[in-house]
C-alpha cells in the first residue's frame, strides 16, 4: 500500500501557480497532486503559511501598482515587503509599467485570484485530513527543531509532522524545498535530533522531496 502524503506549503503553492510554461518543480508539484493516489494531509501551520503567502503576494502587487502610479516611489522605502521581495517587485514593475494602471492592476489581481481559487478548491476538495491546529503545536518541539534548522515556518510544519507521526503509520513528508529540506539536510536533521534528544520518542516521516525526484 502507498503511503499517505503530509504536504508542505511549497507543494500546494507551486500547484496553484502551474501553467504549461511552468518550470520543472512547479510541474512536478502539479502532477503530484493531480495524480493523487493516497490520502493528502495538511496541518494548521501549512494553512497559516499559505494565508501569509497570499497576503505577502498581494502587498508586492500593490506596491508595483503604487510604483506604476508614481514613478518617484521607491520600493526600498516600503517596510511592508521584505528585502527578498524587492527584486520580484522590480521585475513585475518593468514588465507592467507600460500598461494602463487599471490594466496592470487587473492582470495582477487575476494572477492572485486564479492561484487562490486553485488553492481553495484543492483544500476543500482534495484534502482528506486537516491536522494539528496551530494552537496544538508543541512549542518545545518547535524550539528543538529550531536549534537545528533556522526557518521558523519550516520548524512549525516539521513539528506538526513529528507530532502526527507519533500516532500514525509511516507517511510521506512531501516538500519542494531545495534548501533546508533536501535529503542530506533532512538526514542531518534526523541525526542531530536523535543526538540532541536521545530520549525523545519522535519518529521522522519519510521524506519525499520533489526537487530530487526524476
Amino acid at each position, binding site marked *: 500500500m502507498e503511503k499517505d502524503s503530509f504536504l508542505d506549503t511549497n507543494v500546494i503553492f507551486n500547484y496553484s501557480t502551474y501553467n504549461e510554461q511552468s518550470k520543472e518543480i512547479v510541474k512536478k508539484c502539479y502532477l503530484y497532486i493531480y495524480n493523487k493516489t493516497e490520502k493528502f494531509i495538511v496541518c494548521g501551520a501549512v494553512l497559516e503559511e499559505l494565508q501569509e503567502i497570499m497576503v505577502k503576494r498581494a502587498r508586492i502587487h*500593490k506596491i508595483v501598482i503604487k510604483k506604476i502610479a508614481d514613478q518617484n516611489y521607491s520600493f526600498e522605502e516600503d517596510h511592508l515587503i521584505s528585502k527578498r521581495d524587492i527584486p*520580484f517587485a522590480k521585475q513585475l514593475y518593468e514588465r507592467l509599467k507600460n500598461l494602463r494602471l487599471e490594466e496592470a492592476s487587473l492582470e495582477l489581481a487575476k494572477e492572485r485570484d486564479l492561484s487562490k481559487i486553485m488553492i481553495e478548491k484543492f483544500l476543500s476538495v482534495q484534502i482528506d485530513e486537516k491536522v494539528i491546529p496551530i494552537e496544538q503545536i508543541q512549542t518545545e518541539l518547535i524550539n528543538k527543531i529550531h536549534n537545528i534548522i533556522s526557518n521558523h515556518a519550516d520548524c512549525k510544519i516539521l513539528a506538526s509532522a513529528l507530532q502526527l507521526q507519533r500516532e500514525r503509520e509511516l507517511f510521506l513528508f512531501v516538500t519542494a524545498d531545495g534548501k533546508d529540506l533536501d535529503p542530506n539536510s533532512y538526514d542531518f536533521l534526523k541525526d542531530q535530533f536523535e543526538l540532541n534528544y536521545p530520549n525523545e520518542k519522535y519518529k521522522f516521516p519519510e521524506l519525499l522531496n520533489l526537487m530530487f525526484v526524476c
Partner: protein
Amino acid sequence: MVIRKTTKQIKEEILSCLNEGPLSIEQVRIKVESNWSTVNNYLEDLSKDGKVKEIISADKAKIYQRIFGDTYFDIPITDEERKKFRTLFSLIIQEYKTRGKIPTKTCFAKCAVHVIKNESSGLSDLPIIWYLYGLIPQMIADPAKEYQEEISLEHKTKIKNLILEFINKNEKKGSGQIQKEQHREYSEKLYILADEFFEVLNKKEWKNEEVLEILNKFFIACPIDNEFPEIFDLTETVLSIIRKMTLIKIELQNYRKEILLTFDSLWKLIALYKLYKSKTTGKNALNKEMLLKFYLGSTLESRRMTLKETILELNSVYFNNLANFDQNQIKLSKDVQEIRKIMEDWTGED
C-alpha cells in the same frame, strides 16, 4: 492663611485638567493639589453625573476620561475651539432660519467645513476630520440643538458671506449630492469610489463588469500603510472574494445583501482609519498611542470583528459555488503567464 477650595472648585479643576486627555487619579491629584481619596471621591461623583467615565480600571490605577458627548468619539478639543464651533454653528442655523429652513445634518456639517477651510474666515485652526461621509467638523454639528454666539468672531461678516455662498450654491441639492461634490472637491479618490460603488450597489440590476471596474480602482486607491497594514489586507480580502465570485461565474446580483453588508463594514473600518489619520497628521496632531488607546481602539476592534463576520458570510457564498467549478475553464492571459514566470522563484519566505 490657607484658603480651602470648595467642592465645586475642586470638581471644576478636575474637569479642566481632564480636558487635554485621560488621566489617572494620581495624575489628577498632582494637578489639582489635593489628596488621593478626595480626588477619587469627586471623580466617582462626576462619573455618576455623566461628566467623566472610568476607562481603565485596575485597583488604584484607575484612569478617567472627560465626557463631552459633543465631539466624534469624545476626542478632546479645547474650550476655545468648542466656543468657536458653537458660534459658527449658531451663525449657520440663523442663516438657514431666515429662509425658514433647518439644514440636514450633512448640509450643516459641510457648510461648517466650507467656512473653516476658507482661510479668510479666521477659523482654519478648528479641527476637521475625514470620516464616514467625508470631511466634517470634529465637533458634532447637530441641527436639532440650540447654539449661541458664545464669542465674538473677528471675521464675522466674512464668515456670514461664506455661509451664504454655501447655502445659495447648495440650496436645491440633496445631502447625498453635496457630500459627493465635497469628495470630488478634495479629490479624495477612496471616497469618490465608495460613492460610485454604493451607487452601483443600489441599482436595480448589477453588471459584474461594472462592479469589478470600480473595485479595481478601489484597490489602486486603497492606502497601504506600514502603520496599519490590515486596512489594505482586509480590503484585498473583500475585493478578492468578489473578484473570485465572478471568475467562478457567480452572478453578483444574486448576493446583493452579502456584498452590500461586507462592503459597508469595510467602509466603516476604512473611515475610522481615515479619521485616525486626520487626527494624527498635520497641525494639532494628537498622540497616536493615546488616540488609539483611549478613543478609537475599542471601536476599531469591534469594526474589525464585524467586518470579519461579514467576510465569513460572503466567503460561504463563494465556497458553496467553488466545489462545482472546473478551474480548467479559466484561460490564462499572456500577461498573467508572464507575471507567473517572474514570480516562479518567489517562495514567500522572509
